[in-house]
């Protein structure tokens, strides 16, 4: 599966995405930890608070669905193809 980075996170990491081997039982949180390893940069604390909830304006989407309305970072990736990670951002 593909983990895509956006906004300031993309600019900081300097890469748009990384590929991971798909494992349906993997949680979204674990997938993001693996993405940290493969980019060599930790960014967890820019997206999630201490309880693993995304900061206001930040979001993680599993095939477009916000994990806030699923099981949060514990959501299983299943057969999803993409995780999109956004640090806090907003506009109008």
């Amino acid at each position, binding site marked *: 599966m593909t983990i895509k980075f956006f*906004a300031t996170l993309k600019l900081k990491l300097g890469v748009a995405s990384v590929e991971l081997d798909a494992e349906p039982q993997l949680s979204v949180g674990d997938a993001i930890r693996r993405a940290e390893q493969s980019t060599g940069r930790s960014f967890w604390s820019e997206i999630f608070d201490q309880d693993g909830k995304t*900061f206001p304006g930040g979001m993680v989407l599993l095939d*477009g669905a*916000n994990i806030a309305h699923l099981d949060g970072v514990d959501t299983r990736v299943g057969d999803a193809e993409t995780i999109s990670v956004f640090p806090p951002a*907003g*506009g*109008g």
Partner: protein
Amino acid sequence: MAFMGTTLRVNLTDGTIKKESTPVDLAKKYVGGRGLATRLLMNEIDPGIDALSPNNKLIFATGPLTNTNAPTGGRYMVVTKGPLTGGVASSNSGGDWGAYLKKAGYDMVIVEGKAAKPVYLSVMEDEVELKDAAHVWGKRVPETTDMLIAESGQKKAKVSCIGPAGENMVLFASIMNEKHRAAGRTGVGAVMGSKNLKAIVVHGDKKSPIPDPDAFRDLVKGKIATIRGNGITGEGLPKLGTKVLDNIINENGLYPSRNFQDVMYDGTAHMSGEALVEKGYLKRNSGCYMCPIACARNVELPNGRKGEGPEYETGWAFGPLLGFHDLNVICDANFLCNDLGLDTISAGVTIACAMEMYEKGYIKKEELANGPELSFGNTEALPYYLYQMAYREGIGDKLAEGSLRFATSYGCPEFSMTCKGQEIPAYDPRGVQGMGMSYAVGNRGADHVRSYLIGPEILGSPEKLDPQAIDGKMQWLFIFQNLTAVIDSSGLCLFTSFALNADDYADMLNAATGFNLSTEQWLEAGERIWNMERNFNLSAGITPDKDTLPKRFFEEPAQRGPNKGKVHRLPEMLPEYYQIRGWNADGTIPASKLEALGIE
């Protein structure tokens, strides 16, 4: 108490200029800016008049926090009866102009009548004069601004003016200040043009009288720290501007393309806020008066052209909505609209409507008179028809009436993506139920900045709501509409509300005015303003059956992405909204409600 105490009344028909006391006693009920100006408009005009007739009035109004050091304290509103919807029009702008109107000593300018020939108003503190504008009539915004600043003899003078689009009464013409800041929506520029008023030039160095300046400064410091410490206002907006939303909204499956025929756009990565940085086009960010956020983009293109923008809405309206993603074309079209004084959202959505009609055979090739094909993806069409619109040339004369009148004239109003005649912004209602309702019941027609439910529904600010859920949404809409009316009327920028809450605004308003109202009382003022605007619209003949969306959003489900198969569920939410507002089931306002809110 933060008001300068004086309002200018300028009658263009007979050339008289009066200095009147600002009705500050009304500020407890209507705050200032948007609220107070709408109150005066209600008192002074018949809502049924023709918006472009001399009987209409055009009010430039600041709020109590304008020209203070409150974060973003520089904004003003232009309030009038609008030509696009026929209802209340009010449009907010940043930059410095609002603060400088107060520095010159005035809270508001009420413009009446119509000048026999083009004029501009010069407001240099006590010296206020109408001057001949023959030499700037026909000129674009940047040239007009430079010439009038030079003429004023004050390098720091600020100019709010119309471009050719306003002069030609394009129904969605904007009023521009500091060249790049726009009171963009609802066609306020057309009203200014109808009055033969080219510009208002302001200058001065007066301070707003704050009851306890030291206490105010301390209070404001805390609010600025909150804004700086917030992820959205402290990092996201300064770094990437509102254009950070391109990918967010696309990935969430509500980024309209090809006149809302699709809910996603595949080329988004090429024109996104990130791309603007990566391609090296973004040179720096900048901000309006006293703004700690600084969301404005200063861009230089490979062709050497420089300017401000694009922000999220414009980038979308001049790109994905029309089926292309060339950032050079998008930025150039943005610069062109700023120069001509055109609202970018209505201009883009009107061209998108024409493209769908052309592709479906409603517009014949001969009508284009050798102009570029009006086809999605044709980048040449954009600047060509923008220019034609502004000068009302060729088919541009019809496009200048906005998409609803345009499509209706061909017998196919269903291709116009509008509510109450104003074009829909860049969030597809099928992907976001609350925001869709916000468009449908908006007092200025389709509108994203009068109740920005994208905050909770997509961005999770202040908390995350499911965009497809409908339970409880109408209560959120009610609160957002009321709070936004307070923020707009106070003289601050709506973007502060990503970090600040209702108590923060109440604190600053109380400290600036000395009123000592509770947060609930300020929010009630917001509710009063909302009802007053609605009441104006009802009196103007905008019946509640106009509280709806184009039928596309009910009949054509989203074809892909996370909202695949979804339509908008307005019929399930509208009765609840009326009920929460305390209105009759038919959407009219009972006299008892107006009375309870103290609206005479």
